[in-house]
């Protein structure tokens, strides 16, 4: 008979309209003693206000250095069924699209080999299989690969790339986010499964400047869709929005960061000075039936975002203002540049130093020089405002 845990504190979290994770764990606990013990230790954490998980150990599947996060409990004698409770990261289908059949396949595998608990999904985007024993790792992996799935990244490797739904279900996608993400994922399989970098390296693909996968805040390489030509305007639909009561002057024109729009109240026409447009998306977001990104579409490539650990949080900054990433040739050149950047970072980067922090340390100018990219004004919010310039003396001239 499984132990019966009283969980008065957790039970409080089954109340209220938002779906309850406690209810989910209880559902899984009907099938698995592991999940019953998880309820027990979690109630204890709620009473003691402290976690009971220990630092991960090194566990994994043969030949891979990532994809499994070791997890052990600090009170195994009390909760023996979760003395090991490792996480498996499974690379999600790009854009998080599934068929019912694929979902059931994943459930079948996980019910056979683990807790039956998941995260749909982890923050980076992987399917998270939450909790199994060391012995079950290899059999889980074997069944996953037979079913066409593979592990995601962890540790100092290429982390599982992610993309917004893109052209599959969004009119604003300025490039094929799903294809770009999938191709990058396939290209970097070795780097994804075998950590060989100073620290993690993330790719994220957003189809437009709304950036639904938060690429600019989280990815070492942020790929954000944009366009170069004029915003497409459907004048009749602009008029329809105005007639329907939209305050186009206050809500659209005054919110334009470039102040590049004029609205004529009489004729209900919108005029855009596209040369000044910054491609922020606000007007298009506000009037999706009337305004659309242009036809000359591609992506802005930015580099270096990360969360605070170690030296402080960074947003990505512009590396390539416009790249036609759907074009095979341009994409190959871009892959070459990425390889160049990774080489420099691997050579010179310190342990646990993300590429953004590396650039902060060595200087963006030096980094660009090392990877063979010319500095351009698009890369800076403003030029240097201090006079501490490292002028480089021309050695030949001095001789």
């Amino acid at each position, binding site marked *: 008979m499984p132990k019966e845990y009283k969980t008065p504190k957790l039970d409080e979290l089954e109340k209220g309209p938002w779906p309850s994770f406690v209810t989910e764990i209880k559902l899984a606990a009907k099938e698995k003693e592991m999940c019953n013990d998880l309820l027990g230790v979690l109630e204890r954490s709620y009473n003691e206000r402290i976690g009971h998980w220990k*630092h991960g150990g090194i566990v994994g599947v043969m030949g891979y250095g990532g994809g499994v996060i070791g997890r052990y409990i600090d009170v195994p004698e009390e909760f023996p069924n979760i003395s090991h409770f490792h996480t498996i990261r499974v690379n999600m289908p790009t854009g998080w699209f599934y068929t019912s059949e*694929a979902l059931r396949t994943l459930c079948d595998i996980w019910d056979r080999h683990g807790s039956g608990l998941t995260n749909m999904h982890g923050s980076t985007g992987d399917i998270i299989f939450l909790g199994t024993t060391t012995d079950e790792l290899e059999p889980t992996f074997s069944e996953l690969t037979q079913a066409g799935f593979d592990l995601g990244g962890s540790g100092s490797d290429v982390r599982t790339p992610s993309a917004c739904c893109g052209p599959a279900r969004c009119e604003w996608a300025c490039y094929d986010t799903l294809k770009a993400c999938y191709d990058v994922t396939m290209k970097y399989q070795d780097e994804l499964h075998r950590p060989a970098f100073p620290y993690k390296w993330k790719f994220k693909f957003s189809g437009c400047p709304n950036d639904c996968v938060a690429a600019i805040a989280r990815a070492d390489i942020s790929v954000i869709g944009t366009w170069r030509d004029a915003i497409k305007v459907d004048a009749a639909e602009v008029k329809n929005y105005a007639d329907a009561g939209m305050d186009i002057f206050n809500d659209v024109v005054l919110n334009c960061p470039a102040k590049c729009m004029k609205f004529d109240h009489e004729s209900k026409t919108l005029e855009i000075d596209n040369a000044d447009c910054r491609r922020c998306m606000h007007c298009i977001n506000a009037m999706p039936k009337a305004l659309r990104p242009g036809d000359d579409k591609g992506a802005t490539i930015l580099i270096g975002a990360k969360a605070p650990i170690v030296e402080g949080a960074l947003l990505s900054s512009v590396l390539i203002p416009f790249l036609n990433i759907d074009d095979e040739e341009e994409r190959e050149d871009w892959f070459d540049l990425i390889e160049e950047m990774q080489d420099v970072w691997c050579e010179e980067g310190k342990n646990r130093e993300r590429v953004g922090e590396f650039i902060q340390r060595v200087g963006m100018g030096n980094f660009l020089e090392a990877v063979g990219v010319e500095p351009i004004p698009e890369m800076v919010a403003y030029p240097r405002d201090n006079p501490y310039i490292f002028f480089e003396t021309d050695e030949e001239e001095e001789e």
Partner: protein
Amino acid sequence: MADAMQERLTDIGPPNYEQFLHPVIKKNYGQWKYHEIVEPGVMVHVAESGDELYTVRVASPRLMSTTKIRQFADIAEKYCDGHMRFTSRHNAEFMTPNKGNVAKLKEELLAIGHPAGGIGPAITSIVHTQGWVHCHSAATDASGVVKCVMDDLFEYFNGEKKLPGKCRIALACCLNMCGAVHCSDIAILGVHTKPPRIDHANLNKICEIPNLSASCPTAAIRPATVNGVPSVEVIQENCMFCANCYTVCPAMPLNDPDSDGISIWVGGKVSNARSEPKFSKLAIPFIPNNPPRWPEVTEAIRTIVEVWADNARPYERIGEWIDRVGWPRFFRLTGFEFKKEHVDDFKHAGLSFKRSAHITHEPWEE
């Protein structure tokens, strides 16, 4: 096992996404014309071909049992030709070309505990981390706090109450920020507030001391011999409790029931719409962990949401509203105390000081 070993597959990557796309999506891939929000939690995408695709977005706790995923699979089969997806913020989405299926989808999903909402100027699911459910470095729980906050803000999820613009909330249970919460309209961040307790007897056996010293952003960790064995010492006044040392060395735990808690940050965004992406800024430095329902946290977040909703202009996100009216207004209207902790003292701190005479005088009285 032997058979499995023989045909062992590696580096196959994820299954190709194309096989998972709904036929209507495949047909209209890259050919969508516009979309409209039909009702809270429901939108329709219209293609150049005239095809329509309805999406019902529902709440998810993110932590899901296979039992629930199978229920989702069944519902997708019944109403969505066997297709569904999840969003970057962990919502579940059910898509169908058949408008008549929308009401039934909403009803059946609600019946298994998943209400529709979270589209447009609404509060949607909270991106979050593992917390006490599965993490070694958590300074608070994740799923529990999220559940309490979303229960409390539910009327902003299901559309009963309107908001000026989008509001993205995220939670990370420690400074590692697996949830990358640092650019959220409202960020809930678990924090430690006491230095690590050093396990001198075991440290040298399980950790590399040079790596450990190098892990400290403020160089507060120095090699030292303690009781005759190699270990480290922590310069206490330089420690800001980031726990990076604990990440590289298990012999440096910081977790503590009384000194761990939650900080609240506001005004970040990742979208480029209107204003450039920006970091969240500190609103409340520390709230003690008060499980199971964290009432002080839910109240603080409700205060932020209500003050913003009452005062912002259409489309203005929290950070954009504060940029316009100034931080003195934010602190006055929320009633949050402004303290020493709010003034930055890390690298480049001076950039956050008020370096102009643009000041509102609070409170303004006619």
